[in-house]
């Protein structure tokens, strides 16, 4: 078969030029974003890139992910095959046959098999999308059967079919097919043909393959399949910190606070928006989306992309975009109700196969609304003022903070004398239900001989809620004051009984130079159990226990085992699991400052979770967080299931020790 090089070369040049131009245009768009350092720790970044991108770690977390895994690797290997194919089209003398025979044969075999794998994968994907589409693939702006998705699948299938036909025709014409089992099998069907017809099949197949390949390449940067180009770098440039720890802001006259225009996002945020694979996994897990709120993390990313594309040409010329980033619902704009619906549970960031940071973008936009516009749901006004004036969400007098300890006598923290600073937190200090947990933990520590002390009225709120709500200015002040206090008092180890305090002290305060050991009480109790420091004379009988993961303990800090170990030690039995647990756990609805807001749109998140709990018919719903405690107790009341008790792991443990 003779290839018409003089026809192919100009076609190739045009296709490559338009492809490069499209990519350049997209990169220029990314470059309008603000600077952000995502170049540190190259070794760690590379390692992650290999496991997330090449290892498809998160893709494989779901059963269907295997299909993408095969398609991805087939694609990677066929890159070599297609490279060779294009070179053959360009240079008459080029041929893989010039390679040493074993290598050449090995490659032929590989390409042949892998092409079949790709074809089967595409067929499975096609059938899945058309016949059994999972609900989360579709939403208000796309559907599993979207023309684009099906077109791409059809193109890949065409490439594979053309590849096989080309090879089969050549084998039928007498080329050796020993190393191409699939093509050889197909060649047997071409036995009836000879001479010219075979020649024509080969030529047509070659050209179909060539044209579809060049078209496919050009479609990539202009479709959701852009992720084929951006996903790997996106994994490299991922956030090395936990994604709920957002960058600090500098409070200087003239600075901007938060994001109100797409170009104020960092370049990485914009790269994220071009990397979404539309897999829908974040949408599937998002508690807000699942309960009828206008928030969909995938839509946030999508709207940022649409906004960037729509405003792009103006921005590249230094002009202003016309489509508002925050505004009435519509493609390219994010509705404020959506931004306020986020519980910062982190389900989206922990499930995204290409490590897009959806929730941090929401926080950035909240920062703008709160700090530059002073616009937020009205319930928050009280919260903010209470936080600023009295450093607790309820506005209770700070002098009442240490009162819970009255029964235990004075327990001040003294550097050098007390092992742990017990950072009680606002809920543990003021909320009447959470105070029982505080006392339970204090009792456990006493019985285990751990010395601890509190800061009493000097303790301040950790600032978790205000930070997640976008009130960075107030958070900044609280964090600085707390860190200064910890340093001044010589604190080296902290135990908290609230995952929000825990995560904030442990992760967020690092940005303020706090490098101390911070433990959540589940970790400390589990450690004491392991060290045999807890005498457990009787197993606590709590009936059937179902354990609810706190997002800020679990997903945000990967602490899934410790609370379960505590329950097991106290009751002799591992707790029963929710359908959605651990990494896939479902928020109680109180994170991200939602604890202090009305939930007016859609159904209530805590009810959804409580209903899921009741499916297990538990006697006790066990939690490890004061917010979860409130939400679960309220939910059980509303569901008329007050026979189910809500207990913190510390309470369960304290009962086993009594």
């Amino acid at each position, binding site marked *: 078969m003779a290839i018409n090089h003089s026809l192919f070369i100009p076609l190739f040049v045009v296709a490559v030029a338009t492809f490069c131009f499209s990519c350049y245009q997209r990169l220029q768009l990314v470059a309008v974003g603000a600077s952000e350092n995502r170049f540190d720790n190259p070794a760690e970044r590379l390692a992650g890139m290999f496991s997330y991108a090449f290892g498809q770690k998160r893709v494989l977390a779901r059963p269907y992910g295997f299909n993408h895994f095969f398609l991805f690797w087939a694609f990677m290997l066929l890159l070599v095959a297609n490279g060779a194919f294009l070179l053959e089209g360009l240079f008459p003398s080029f041929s893989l046959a010039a390679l040493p025979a074993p290598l050449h044969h090995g490659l032929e075999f590989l390409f042949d098999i892998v092409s079949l794998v790709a074809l089967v994968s595409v067929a499975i994907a096609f059938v899945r999308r058309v016949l059994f589409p999972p609900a989360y693939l579709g939403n208000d702006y796309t559907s599993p059967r979207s023309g684009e998705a099906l077109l791409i699948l059809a193109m890949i299938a065409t490439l594979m079919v053309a590849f096989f036909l080309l090879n089969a025709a050549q084998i039928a014409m007498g080329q050796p097919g020993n190393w191409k089992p699939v093509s050889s099998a197909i060649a047997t069907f071409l036995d009836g043909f000879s001479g010219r017809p075979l020649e024509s099949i080969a030529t047509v197949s070659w050209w179909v393959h060539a044209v579809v390949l060049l078209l496919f390449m050009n479609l990539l940067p202009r479709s959701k399949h852009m992720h084929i180009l951006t996903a790997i770098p996106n994994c490299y440039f991922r956030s090395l910190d936990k994604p709920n720890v957002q960058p600090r802001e500098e*409070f*200087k*006259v003239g600075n901007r*606070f938060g994001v109100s225009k797409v170009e104020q996002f960092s370049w990485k945020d914009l790269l994220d928006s071009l990397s979404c694979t539309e897999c829908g996994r974040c949408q599937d897990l998002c508690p807000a989306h699942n309960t009828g709120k206008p928030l969909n993390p995938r839509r946030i990313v999508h709207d940022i992309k649409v906004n960037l594309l729509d405003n792009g040409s103006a921005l590249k010329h230094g002009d202003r975009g016309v489509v508002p980033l925050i505004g009435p619902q519509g493609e390219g704009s994010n509705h404020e109700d959506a931004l306020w619906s986020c519980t910062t549970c982190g389900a989206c960031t922990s499930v995204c196969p290409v490590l897009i940071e959806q929730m941090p973008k929401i926080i950035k936009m909240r920062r703008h609304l*709160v*700090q*530059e*516009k*002073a616009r*937020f749901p*009205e319930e928050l*006004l009280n919260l*903010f*003022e209470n936080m600023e*004036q*009295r450093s607790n969400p309820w*506005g209770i*007098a*700070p*002098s009442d903070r240490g009162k819970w300890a009255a029964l235990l006598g004075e327990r001040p923290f003294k550097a050098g004398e007390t092992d742990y600073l017990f950072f009680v937190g606002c809920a543990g200090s003021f909320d009447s239900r959470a105070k029982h947990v505080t006392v339970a933990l204090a009792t456990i520590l006493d019985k285990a001989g751990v010395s601890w002390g509190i800061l009493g009225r000097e303790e301040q709120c950790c600032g978790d809620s205000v930070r997640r709500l976008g009130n960075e*200015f107030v958070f900044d002040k609280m964090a600085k004051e707390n860190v200064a206090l910890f340093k001044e008092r010589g604190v080296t180890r902290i135990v908290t009984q609230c995952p929000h305090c825990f995560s904030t002290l442990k992760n967020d305060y690092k940005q303020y130079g706090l490098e101390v050991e911070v433990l959540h009480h589940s970790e400390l109790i589990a450690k004491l159990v392991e060290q045999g420091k807890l005498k457990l004379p009787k197993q606590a009988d709590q009936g059937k226990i179902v354990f609810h993961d706190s997002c800020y303990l679990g997903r945000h800090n990967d602490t899934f085992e410790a609370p379960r170990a505590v329950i097991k030690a106290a009751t002799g039995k591992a707790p029963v699991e929710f359908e959605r647990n651990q990494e896939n756990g479902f928020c109680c609805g109180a994170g991200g400052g939602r604890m202090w807001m009305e939930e007016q749109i859609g159904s209530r998140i805590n009810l959804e979770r409580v209903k899921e709990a009741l499916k297990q018919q538990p006697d006790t719903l066990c939690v490890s967080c004061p917010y979860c405690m409130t939400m679960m107790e309220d939910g059980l009341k509303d569901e008329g299931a007050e026979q189910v008790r809500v207990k913190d792991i510390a309470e369960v443990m304290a009962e086993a020790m009594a």
Partner: protein
Amino acid sequence: MLVISCIKQVPDTTQVKIDPVTNTLVREGIPFIVNPYDTHALEEGLNLKDRYGLRSVAISMGPPNTEATLRKACALGVDEAILLSDRAFGGADTLSTSNVLSAAIEKLGAEESVGIVFCGKQTIDGDTAQVGPGIATRLGYTQLTLVDRIEFLDLKRNVIRVRRKLEGRHEIVEAPLPVVITVVRELNRPRYPTVPMRLAAQETEVKVWDNSVLKLDVETVGLKGSPTWVSKIFSPERDKGEIIGDGVGDPEGTANLLIDKLLSKDLLAV
């Protein structure tokens, strides 16, 4: 035209305790806040600025640390903030406080006509509710107390119509400018400062007027100008409340009883 909001810095009284031995307020380490009613006086000044283009000014009499309170007013958007501070003003009762505030308002009025002076209904520390009416009397302005709604401001006819919140009824009153209005909390929802405004406020100049500026007779200000003095402060014995209804047996009926009780004590609005 000016709209002037009088704001007072007060100790956060939820945190104030009375020393059982000396019977004086323990103010040590107690943070200061803007008198809660005054945040509404300030907000309404800013509202009129936004709606009618008036120039809003915040004034406060107090020791030098009162500057912090005035900076908060700047962060919320007042055009000018003035601290009235002089050793001679110290120890003032309501009479001499209103003397100083009136003098400052008069001085501002000499430059630009004063339309409305907003005061809180009362403070949470002194609790007298006298300063607003005192200013009106001294300046000869119409006094409109306990206002919970501004019906309209007519700058052509120079009149304002307001709604007063009285026990069990409302009263609509119209008055010619200038007026002193004392406000209740229902009037508005105070705004929250934006960060750029807060940062700018840190650098804004808060003017300080002492008696060399106001030139008041020292006999009429501060302790000397104060005919009232406190002879004793003490915590009253708290009466035990009563238990009404049967919450376990009849939760609904008990809730109704409670609501009636709260309504009769004017603790709940219908």
